[in-house]
């Protein structure tokens, strides 16, 4: 009898579990990387963005796969004043928040002002502040430090208060401090999601008034109510997020319920171990999983019975990286430049200011080897440091590739021929574990050392903290840096990589007045065609001047269960993939066949 019972128990255990696929109206995604915060004003990472873009909405958004075409969401229409400094949006009248409150202009004003008031240092608030109030894009506490007078603070608050105004209940106006062609797309980023102001204030968030604004300046919003509560209008509402998995369900009161999402429930699970994610897909417990590397994709996923791999050489993401040449290397106590002289045993601190050196390096850079070694053949070389899907990317600009004769020619020209005679020694460092940085360094070493026995490049692995410190102190002669888009405007990349005041360019001391002029002109006009022409000029000038060497971009992929599709997929594809969406597509567009 006892044995019998055990048998029944065992059979039951096993039987109850055999291959349960996720339900037809449930979507389960398994990924790694935890959500940082569900407060739109705090979150600045893709894991959080992938949730926020579904539970919150913005005034306008990207249309399908495009990042240059837009469609209204919470707004119905907009106009820009002739001076380009006032944006007026008409709001949709029938929008309910998940709480049941009705959306009005007051909520839009609250949401954007809250961004400007709080603007914590590790959030996206800076680029809204830059457009709307200035103050170097930082919050009042960080801007003034301890030395703020009451008058300073009043002025700062006034700037915030003036920047967003309600004309009536369903008309909102933004007043920019200067013309900014990126402002409109900035409003599509999740940080500018529209929050339920009433619900937020009732639950202890900023009151929306001057009374307590300074208390909220620079505050870490992860400790606030909206960090793990949802005050959105999205097609899905948050059911639960407690530090790890996110559960959301279809929102019955959604304004666009005519286009009702097919999925009733969505679960985003954090499963750190890749092998486990793969087995879950195989067992039918997941509809989409994150696969980190192409090797695993090819060996373990392809050919799996109930899974499909989607990819396209157009899926290049909204990111770019490049090799930077440091034109003002810190000379003091810097072992990476050896003697610090052009004597064969080192390089001078301004080694890379000679364009011939940069060109010689460019002609020693083997794009094909990078594509093969780092991306297993699946990558596309870039003509400039801008994602190809962005306005202004010019595919017709030539690309540097390895050419020993040209490299030799430019090395011989450099420093009036002295460099070729004396040779040089330098170190290219990478942080341990970063294979891209490592491969780039090794390829440069191999090709350059082969040109002249007096050329010596040491490749050095450094632990991350040391690498960061060396970067901060300006000691690295050459290094790879990457940038992911904050908003879909070319300025977000071009300024960072090429302008003398850009985040990366400034650090490596690149300054070309002609380049600066082009970039500044492009950020001061709104006509897309004119801007595209200017960015094309930037690309061409960058080809001549070689401030950086853009790296090839790997083509992306998605791993889904066989029956998962989306609405609005381009012809011949199962799903659409918008590089500005953290989750590639929205949950409301998911279809299971």
């Amino acid at each position, binding site marked *: 009898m006892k044995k019998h019972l055990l048998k029944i128990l065992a059979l039951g*255990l*096993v039987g*109850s*579990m*055999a*291959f*349960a696929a*996720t*339900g037809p109206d*449930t979507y*389960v995604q398994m990924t790694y990387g*935890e*959500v*940082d*915060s569900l407060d739109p004003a705090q979150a600045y990472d893709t894991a959080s963005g992938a949730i926020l873009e579904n539970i919150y909405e913005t005034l306008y958004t990207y249309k399908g796969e495009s990042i240059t075409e837009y469609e209204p969401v919470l707004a119905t229409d907009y106009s820009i004043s002739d001076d380009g400094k006032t944006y007026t949006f008409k709001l949709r009248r029938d929008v309910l928040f998940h709480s049941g409150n009705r959306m009005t202009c007051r909520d839009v004003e609250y949401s954007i002002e809250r961004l400007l008031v709080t603007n914590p*240092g*590790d959030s996206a608030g800076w680029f809204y502040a830059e457009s709307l109030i200035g103050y170097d894009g930082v919050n009042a506490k960080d801007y003034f430090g301890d030395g703020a007078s009451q008058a300073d603070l009043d002025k700062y608050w006034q700037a915030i208060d003036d920047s967003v105004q309600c004309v009536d209940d369903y008309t909102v106006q933004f007043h920019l401090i200067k013309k900014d062609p990126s402002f409109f797309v900035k409003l599509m980023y999740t940080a500018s999601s529209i929050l339920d102001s009433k619900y937020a204030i009732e639950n202890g968030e900023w009151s929306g008034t001057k009374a307590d604004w300074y208390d909220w300046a620079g505050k870490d919003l*992860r*400790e606030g109510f909206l*960090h*793990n509560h949802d005050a959105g209008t999205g097609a899905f509402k948050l*059911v*639960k997020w*407690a*530090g*790890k*998995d996110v*559960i959301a*369900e279809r929102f019955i009161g959604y304004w666009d319920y005519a286009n009702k999402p097919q999925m009733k*429930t969505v*679960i985003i*699970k954090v*499963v*750190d*171990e890749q*092998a*486990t994610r*793969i*087995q*879950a897909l*195989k*067992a*039918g*417990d997941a509809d989409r999983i994150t696969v980190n590397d192409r090797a695993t994709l090819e060996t373990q996923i392809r050919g799996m019975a109930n899974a499909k791999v989607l990819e396209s050489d157009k899926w290049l993401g909204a990111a770019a*990286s490049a090799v930077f040449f440091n034109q003002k290397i810190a000379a003091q106590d810097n072992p990476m430049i050896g003697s610090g002289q052009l004597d064969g045993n080192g390089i001078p601190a301004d080694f890379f200011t000679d364009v011939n050196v940069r060109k010689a390096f460019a002609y020693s850079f083997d794009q094909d080897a990078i594509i093969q070694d780092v991306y297993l053949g699946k990558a596309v070389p870039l003509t400039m440091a801008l994602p190809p899907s962005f306005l202004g990317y010019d595919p017709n600009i030539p690309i540097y590739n390895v050419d020993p004769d040209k490299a030799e020619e430019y090395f011989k020209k450099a420093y009036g021929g002295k460099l070729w005679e004396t040779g040089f020694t330098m170190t290219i460092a990478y942080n341990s574990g970063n294979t891209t940085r490592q491969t780039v360094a090794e390829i440069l070493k191999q090709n350059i050392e082969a040109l002249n026995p007096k050329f010596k490049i040491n490749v050095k692995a450094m632990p*991350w*903290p040391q690498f*960061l*410190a060396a*970067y*901060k102190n300006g000691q690295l002669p050459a290094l790879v*840096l*990457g*940038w*992911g888009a904050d908003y879909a405007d070319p300025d977000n990349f071009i300024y960072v990589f090429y302008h003398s005041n850009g*985040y*990366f360019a400034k*650090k490596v001391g690149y300054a070309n007045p002609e380049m600066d002029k082009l970039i500044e002109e492009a950020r001061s006009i709104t006509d897309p065609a004119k801007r595209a022409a200017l960015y094309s000029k930037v690309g061409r000038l960058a080809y001549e001047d070689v401030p950086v060497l853009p790296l090839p971009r790997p083509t992306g992929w998605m791993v889904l269960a066989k029956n998962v599709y989306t609405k609005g997929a381009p012809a011949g594809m199962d799903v659409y993939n918008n590089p500005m969406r953290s989750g590639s597509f929205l949950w409301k567009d998911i279809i299971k066949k």
Partner: protein
Amino acid sequence: MLNYIIRRALQIPLVLFVLSLIIVGLMQLLSPQQRAAAFITSDKQIEHLDQIIEKYHLDEGFIVQYKLWAKEVLHGNLGFSRISKEPVTATVRKKLPASTELALSAFIPIVLMGIWLGTLAATHRDGLLDQVLRVVAIIGWSLPTFVVAIWLVAWVYGGLGWFGIGRLPNSLLIDLATGNFHPHTGMFTIDGILNGRLDVTWAALVRLVLPATALVIVVSAGIMRVMRSSMLDELGKDYVRTARAKGLPEGRVVYKHARRNALIPVITMAGPMLGRMIGGIVVIELIFNFPGLGEWAAKAALQLDMNTLLAFVLLIGLIMATVNLLVDIAYVVVDPRIRYE
């Protein structure tokens, strides 16, 4: 006895205090730059080293750092966990029951099997059974945990589609998040019963099978070996010979007399093992996607999240101290000759 327990309990705060000093002290061995670097994950933040150091007071000395933390703790605030993005106490409330549930579901079979097989091996000393068990034990002992775990996940779960990973199936996760299910204990097996939801208890049990099996395979061997040698010791003692000479049946000699005494080393070993299983089964938690304390703490260690690490170490310290106290009490139960004054 009561006196002893009180005295032991009073030692606990001291232990915790010293543990917290050690952790804060160890952190200080890394430079502020090294600690700040753990916060930086993308090139966009590559310049933020100084701001991070300032924000988290990383350049302050040991005393200041300790005071900053201790002041909050005395107000009942263990701080915010960078790893789990919520207050440390909220995470502990969820993960401690999960870890305990998993640890117990493995611990009970491990101990019972260890004792049973250890006894068998000892009573069949050098016989075929003993030899076989010895080989099995060595194999179990030598298998790396992650190999067993991956094998179970790939073959049993992924291949055959049996059991499952995580704590509950997706359908129940949704159900519990939306319905009125009260997490009284945080252990789904027990909460299921308390809420009259036997389907939850059943599903939770099903999902404990694979991780618990992995633990049983890897850990049982130790207990078995200890039980075997301890049992052999006892069986060779005078009182056993006396009992046999008195004509007591062999079963009574072995199970009533010798085994009871042979349990002491097993208890000594099993107590701390339970404590460690609650806090340290990182690999199992990771591979079976079981959201427990070990994985949380391991991530915290890699990212130098001081609040999380301190809370974890204090919690484990507390568990270990409690377990040790229980072990001491268990000695008295097993062997009435033991007295604490």
